[in-house]
């Protein structure tokens, strides 16, 4: 197992280098100049422009700039934001808990609803429930996320007034945030109504962000279950006189989980991408919104550093998923 982890970590090296290079190149390919953006409407004189370009190192060849950035990254230095002048690293981890909280809630929603939905659909293959569920899942999967978000806001926040439109908590609450997770902090603060307010703020973003993974997980679970239900060992379980509930949820589901876990792992990438849109729509102060703002400001260090950190997160999640395979199916463990 340890050897396996080490060999997997070794494959991180080229991926890491590639991601660093791509994130570095990506923002520079975009038209626009950070110095011009910083200067704003008043513009900037040529001397001042050259001075700033020299200060940020833009006057040197691209490969030198990259090399300096890359050696910095290896030492844990992602540079400072052009705008706030604060280290990218600090900013990222100040905002990341908000994104993590939202993503976790969305993932939990997707798994808690998606797995049983897929199992039930597979067991009732071809019947009304199956068809209704799978068409709903297809709609959910194909729906543009921003449109879905706006629709929910109009209905539940606008017309019905059940949920707040944006933010993480009502403004009247103020408390320290040692963990950065609003649900935990609001509960720890002991202020009346704070936790409830945090939950109400989470509902719509969670639904919006969780919709696509939910649809994907439900469909994947269904197809994996259908395949497994035709296997000989399921017939054996029935010949042993086991109840359908037990067969579906224990004998079959465990075997069907491998492709589902893969999809869940891949969804994490989608989730972080989706978080950017969702956070922007709901003014959720997480890394998604931060990244979008930084792209508009051409804040090179923030964009390249943020992308890199997100990519590393996704890599870690996928490694974890690979470890999980072995836990679920011992046949894979052996290799």
């Amino acid at each position: 197992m340890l050897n396996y982890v080490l060999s997997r970590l070794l494959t991180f090296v080229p991926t890491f280098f590639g991601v660093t290079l791509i994130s570095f190149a990506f923002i520079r390919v975009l038209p626009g100049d950070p110095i011009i953006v910083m200067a704003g409407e008043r513009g900037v004189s040529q001397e001042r422009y050259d001075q700033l370009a020299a200060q940020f190192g833009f006057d040197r060849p691209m490969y030198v700039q990259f090399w300096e950035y890359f050696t910095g990254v290896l030492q844990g230095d992602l540079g400072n934001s052009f705008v706030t002048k604060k280290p990218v690293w600090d900013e990222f981890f100040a905002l990341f808990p908000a994104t993590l909280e939202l993503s976790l809630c969305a993932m939990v929603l997707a798994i808690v609803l998606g797995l049983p939905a897929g199992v039930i659909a597979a067991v009732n293959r071809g019947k009304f429930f199956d068809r209704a569920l799978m068409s709903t899942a297809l709609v959910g999967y194909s729906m543009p996320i921003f449109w879905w978000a706006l629709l929910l806001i109009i209905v539940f926040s606008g017309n019905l007034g059940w949920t707040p439109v944006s933010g993480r908590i009502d403004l009247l609450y103020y408390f320290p945030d040692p963990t950065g997770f609003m649900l935990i902090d609001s509960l720890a603060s002991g202020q009346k109504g704070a936790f409830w307010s945090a939950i109400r703020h989470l509902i719509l973003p969670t639904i919006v962000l969780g919709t696509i993974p939910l649809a994907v997980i439900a469909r994947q679970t269904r197809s994996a279950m259908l395949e497994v239900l035709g296997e000989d060992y399921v017939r054996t379980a029935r010949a042993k006189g086991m109840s359908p509930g037990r067969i579906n949820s224990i004998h079959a589901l465990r075997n069907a989980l491998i492709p589902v876990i893969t999809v869940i792992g891949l969804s994490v990438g989608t989730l972080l991408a989706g978080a950017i849109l969702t956070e922007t729509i709901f003014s959720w102060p997480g890394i998604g919104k931060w990244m979008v703002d930084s792209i508009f400001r051409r804040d090179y260090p923030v964009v390249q550093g943020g992308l890199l950190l997100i990519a590393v997160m996704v890599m870690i999640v996928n490694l974890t998923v690979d470890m999980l395979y072995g836990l679920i199916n011992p046949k894979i463990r052996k290799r």
Partner: protein
Amino acid sequence: MSLLRIRNLSVDFATASGKFRAVDGVDQDVNTGEILAIVGESGSGKSVSMLAMMGLLPWTATVTADEMSFDGHDLLTIGKRERRRVVGKDLAMIFQEPMSSLNPCFTVGWQIKETLRVHLGLSRKACHARAVELFEQVGIPDPERRLSAFPHQMSGGMNQRVMIAMAIACKPKLLIADEPTTALDVTIQAQILDLLTSLRDDNGMGLVLITHDMGVVAETAERVSVQYAGQKIEEQPVLPLFQSPHHPYTAALLDALPERATEKHLPTIPGMVPGQFDRPAGCLFSPRCKYANSKCKAEQPAPQGPELGHARCFYPLNTDERIAS
């Protein structure tokens, strides 16, 4: 009253191109302590009739019968919950492919203990003790250690022993073995058959052996039922069947045994088992039968009497007249 009694069992499968009759009016009786072999080519409905009895067929199958009873339970009207109390406990089945019939995600110990826990409600400790005992009984060496092995860590023969241990865990009254040795090599085959026979001797259970291997039949069975294209076409005790088969199909099957071949070329039965669309109007075997005449091709023969092995044939072989003529 026999342990298992089936009368006029038919199974139809709903397929995209219409109904397909896989089992056609089969009668079957098995007594306690008896070994019945059901033989026939692939597609003759041997497995399907037993799966129908166990209630293991997919939803596309329609099962009809005049009577289907096991140990006082009417399997036609039995409720799902009640059936689950019988199936796996008093009525057990083992399958052709031991490797794929065991769940790859669980240890074999977990899988056998599950049966013990669900049907007998044994405690953890008692389950473990009984599982070790069962593994010993089916000849698995080092049972304590093997209990925590996964199916992929064991050989096919060992896995089939695990399947057998699982099937006999609750001392069933009837064990159905669906081609238990097909996926195994010859030496292991003999061991598994010996094991099944000795378990029958020890536990006094009935044993139904589904096979297409006449060698296995000769070695193990006491009574043989020959199926063809979903119909039972002959049934005799094993010795008379091998000595004087009454149905031409049985005779042809026996002629095709390599051990019996006298000529340079092994005799074969020309043609194939009729499928969904080429089912003949008369005797189902008539297109391949060397004795068939126009009557055979036009009319379905009814089974003969027990003295002629219930052979579904107008002109059964090895009757006294025929020997005389």
